[in-house]
C-alpha cells in the first residue's frame, strides 16, 4: 500500500506546480547568486566603511539614480541616438559592400585586407581625426559609432557571402541558373546567419563607439556624463550611467536578435538558444 501512495504523491508534481518548479530550478540559482553578490557588496561597503567616492554601495547608486533621473535620461537619449543611427548606417553601408567585396577578387584583396588592418587599430586613435573632420557636433559621434560597427559587419558579411559548398555550387550549375538567381535563391539565404553574427558584433561595439566619441569631443551623452561624474568623484552617478549605457547596448542587441528570429527562423541558433 505504501508504494502506491508514494507514487500518487509524485504524480501530483506534474501539472500546475511543475511549471513553477521548472522555473525555480532553472533561474533560482543564478538569480540568488546575483542577489547574494549585491547583498555582499552592500554589507562590505558598510562594514569596511568604504568612502563613497571610492566605491559606492548598490543602494546608494539607486538613490542617486532616482535623484538625477531626468538628467541621466536626457544623456541616455543622446547616446541612444548616436548608437542606433550610427549602427543603422553601418548596416546600410556594410552589408551591400560585403556582397560586392565577396564577389570581386580585386575588392577582396584591397578593401577586405585594408578593413582587417584598419579594424585592428583602436578606434580611439582615430577619434580626434573624426572630430577635426566632422566637428564637435552629433555628426562626428555618429561617424565613430559607424566606424566601430562597420568592421564586424563588413568582415562577417564577406565570410557569409563567400562560402558556397561545392555540392550547392554544382547543383546551381546543373540547373543552368545565372549568377543573380543563384545569389537570390542560394547565396543570400545561406549567408544570413553569418551576416547576423556580424550585426550582433556591431551592436555590442556600438555603445563603446558612442562613449569614446563623447570622451573626445562631447558635451552630452552617457560617456561624457561618466567623465564629468568621475571628475566630481561622484561614483554613484558614474556607475548609474554605466548601467544605463549597458541597457542601451542590450536594447540594440536584442532588437537585432528579434529581426534575426524573424528572418532566419530555420537556423540552428534559434533551436538551441545558443
Amino acid at each position, binding site marked *: 500500500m505504501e508504494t502506491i501512495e508514494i507514487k500518487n504523491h509524485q504524480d501530483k508534481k506534474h501539472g500546475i506546480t511543475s511549471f513553477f518548479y521548472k522555473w525555480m530550478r532553472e533561474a533560482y*540559482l543564478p538569480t540568488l547568486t546575483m542577489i547574494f553578490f549585491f547583498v555582499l557588496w552592500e554589507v562590505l561597503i558598510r562594514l569596511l566603511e568604504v568612502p563613497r567616492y571610492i566605491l559606492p554601495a548598490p543602494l546608494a547608486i539607486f538613490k542617486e539614480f532616482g535623484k538625477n533621473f531626468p538628467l541621466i535620461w536626457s544623456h541616455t537619449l543622446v547616446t541612444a541616438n548616436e548608437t542606433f543611427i550610427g549602427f543603422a548606417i553601418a548596416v546600410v553601408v556594410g552589408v551591400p559592400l560585403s556582397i560586392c567585396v565577396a564577389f570581386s577578387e580585386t575588392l577582396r584583396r584591397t578593401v577586405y585586407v585594408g578593413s582587417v588592418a584598419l579594424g585592428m587599430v*583602436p578606434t580611439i586613435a582615430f577619434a580626434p581625426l573624426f572630430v577635426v573632420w566632422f566637428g564637435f557636433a552629433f555628426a562626428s559621434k555618429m561617424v565613430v559609432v559607424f566606424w566601430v560597427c562597420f568592421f564586424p559587419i563588413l568582415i562577417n558579411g564577406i565570410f557569409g557571402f563567400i562560402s558556397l559548398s561545392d555540392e550547392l555550387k554544382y547543383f546551381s550549375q546543373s540547373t543552368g541558373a545565372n549568377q543573380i538567381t543563384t545569389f537570390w535563391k542560394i547565396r543570400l539565404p545561406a549567408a544570413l546567419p553569418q551576416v547576423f553574427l556580424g550585426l550582433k558584433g556591431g551592436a555590442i561595439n556600438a555603445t563603446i563607439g558612442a562613449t569614446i566619441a563623447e570622451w573626445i569631443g562631447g558635451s552630452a551623452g552617457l560617456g561624457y556624463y561618466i567623465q564629468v561624474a568621475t571628475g566630481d568623484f561622484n561614483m554613484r552617478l*558614474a556607475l548609474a550611467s*554605466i548601467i544605463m549605457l549597458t541597457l542601451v547596448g542590450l536594447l540594440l542587441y536584442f532588437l537585432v536578435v528579434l529581426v534575426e528570429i524573424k528572418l532566419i527562423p530555420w537556423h540552428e541558433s534559434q533551436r538551441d538558444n545558443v
Partner: protein
Amino acid sequence: MKRKWLTGNRITIFYGTLLIIIWECWLRLFEIPVYLLPKPSGIVVKFIQHFPLILEYTWITGIESFGGFFVSIALGIPLSLFIAFSDFLRKTLYPSIVALQLVPKIALAPLFVTWFGFGMMPKFIIVFLLCFFPILLNAILGFTSLRQELQNFALSTGADPLTVFWKVRLPAALPQIFVGFKWAAVNATVGATIGEWIGGDAGLGYYIQIASGDMKMDLAFAIIVMLAFLGLVLYFLVVVFEKILTPWHVSQRSSVHGGGMVGMQ
C-alpha cells in the same frame, strides 16, 4: 586568353602602393593642411624623427597590454577550470559572468583612473578586464564541450581524472581556448590605449592624444602605425603558440579563419 598579371597578393601590393601615391600627390597638389590629413611622406619623416620616444612609449604600452593579457590568462584559465568542472559554480557564477560581459568595460576607464591614478595600474586593470572575459568564457566553452564519445572513451579506460584531463580534456579544449586568446589579443592594445588616453602620462595612446591635441596629425598617424604593429605582434605571438600547441587542428590546415564572430573593439 592572356593570363592576367594582376592576381593574388600582387593586387594588394599594387593597389596599396597606388593608394599611397595618390594620397601623397593629392595632398601636395591641393596643399591640404596637415591637421586635416597628413601626407605619407610626412608620416614617415615624423616616425623617424621621433623614433626614440615612440620606441620608449611602445615599450610602456607593450608592458600594459602584454602584462594585462598574460595576467588574464593566469587568472582566467584556472577559474575556467573551476567553473567548468563544478556544477554548482557553473549554475551560480557563470550566468553572472555572462551578464558582466555585457557591460561596456571601456566606459569604466575614467573610474579606474580616478581610483588608481595615472600610473600603469589602471591601464593594467582595463586591459585585464577586456581580456579576462573572452578568455574565461571561451575556456569554459572549450572545457565543457567534450564530445560524449570521448568522455565515454575516457571513462572506459578507467584512468584517473588528472590523466583524463591532461590527455583528453585539455587538448580537446585548446582550439576553443585559443579563440579566446586571439580575441583578447586584439583587444589588449585597445584597452591600454584607452587607459592612457583617459589618464596617462606615457605610452603610445597618451602620445597620440598629445599629438592630435597639437593638431600634429602626421605624428599621430606615425604613432598609430606603431600601435597597430604592437597589436599585430601580440596577435601573431598567439597564432604562433597556437600552431605549436595545436598543429593538428582543422583551422591550421587551411588558411581560412572561419566560424564565429570577427572583429571586436
